[in-house]
């Protein structure tokens, strides 16, 4: 793997947000962006040479922005906004996983979306034995997105 897990996570996230949502990131987020509470989380489980979960946490106000940019229309409804978050997580995951193993292939499940909860890392951490292995924090306009990578310590999945 070239670069650290965190560097590759940032790289995958930045590429995806730029290419799909046309947003240039602020790294690190400024204080105002950091203050935005998380309003929804998309979670993608993957398996292959390594197993784990990639989560995309969306700060307040980010969803309408990314969705409008992604579909090219104004005022997208809430369902579409949550869908957009899931799809971004899906694409970030696909961009990131070659950093774990550039040769072997990974599979991922459809994203799961949770909205309207009380999101703290403790409240929404992935079940053990997966551990938080890398984190990318990115600011966008007045909001923010965090990308969290959880890995199972046992690298090989059953095939």
């Amino acid at each position, binding site marked *: 793997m070239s670069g650290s897990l965190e560097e590759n996570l940032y790289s995958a996230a930045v590429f*995806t947000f730029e*290419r*799909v949502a046309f947003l240039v990131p602020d790294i690190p987020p400024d204080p105002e962006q950091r203050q935005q509470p998380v309003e929804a989380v998309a979670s993608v489980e993957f398996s*292959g040479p390594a197993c784990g979960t990639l989560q995309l946490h969306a700060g307040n106000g980010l969803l309408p922005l990314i*969705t409008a940019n*992604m*579909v*090219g229309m104004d005022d997208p409804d809430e*369902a*579409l906004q949550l*869908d*957009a978050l*899931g*799809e971004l997580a*899906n*694409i970030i*995951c*696909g*961009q990131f*996983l*070659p950093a774990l193993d550039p040769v*072997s*292939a*990974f*599979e*991922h*499940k*459809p994203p799961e979306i949770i909205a309207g909860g009380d999101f703290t890392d403790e409240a929404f951490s992935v079940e053990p034995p997966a551990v938080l292995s890398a984190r990318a924090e990115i600011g966008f306009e007045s909001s923010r997105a965090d990308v969290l990578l959880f890995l199972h310590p046992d690298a090989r999945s059953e095939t």
Partner: protein
Amino acid sequence: MSINVLLIDDSAVMRAIALKSLQMSGVPLGTVHQAANGVDGLAVLHQHWVDLILLDVSMPFMRGDEMLEQMRADPALAGTPVVVVTSERGTERVTRMQELGAVHLPKPFTPEQLRDVVRDVTGVRS
């Protein structure tokens, strides 16, 4: 001549992006159908004339590779051109879908890339 297209993806946003990209491509479109999984996709295929399928892989109820296996085993559906649109790379299931004759378009794609793939697969220009 216009082409009827079936968009199969569990993400409504991706279906919207694909639809918009198709509309931008200049390729003459007939009816564009949508489905959120392989089961619904097969149901559309059995009811409607479809000239091209844009197919996701990872979906609930029936994955894209599973759906394509069933299509290729059905003489009525076997010849329908399929473009696999997925963020997965090099997985067994994507490779298998290519062996079954599908063309792979990785996510994220630009509208220009989708246009080029649709033109290549269908032979239809603007």
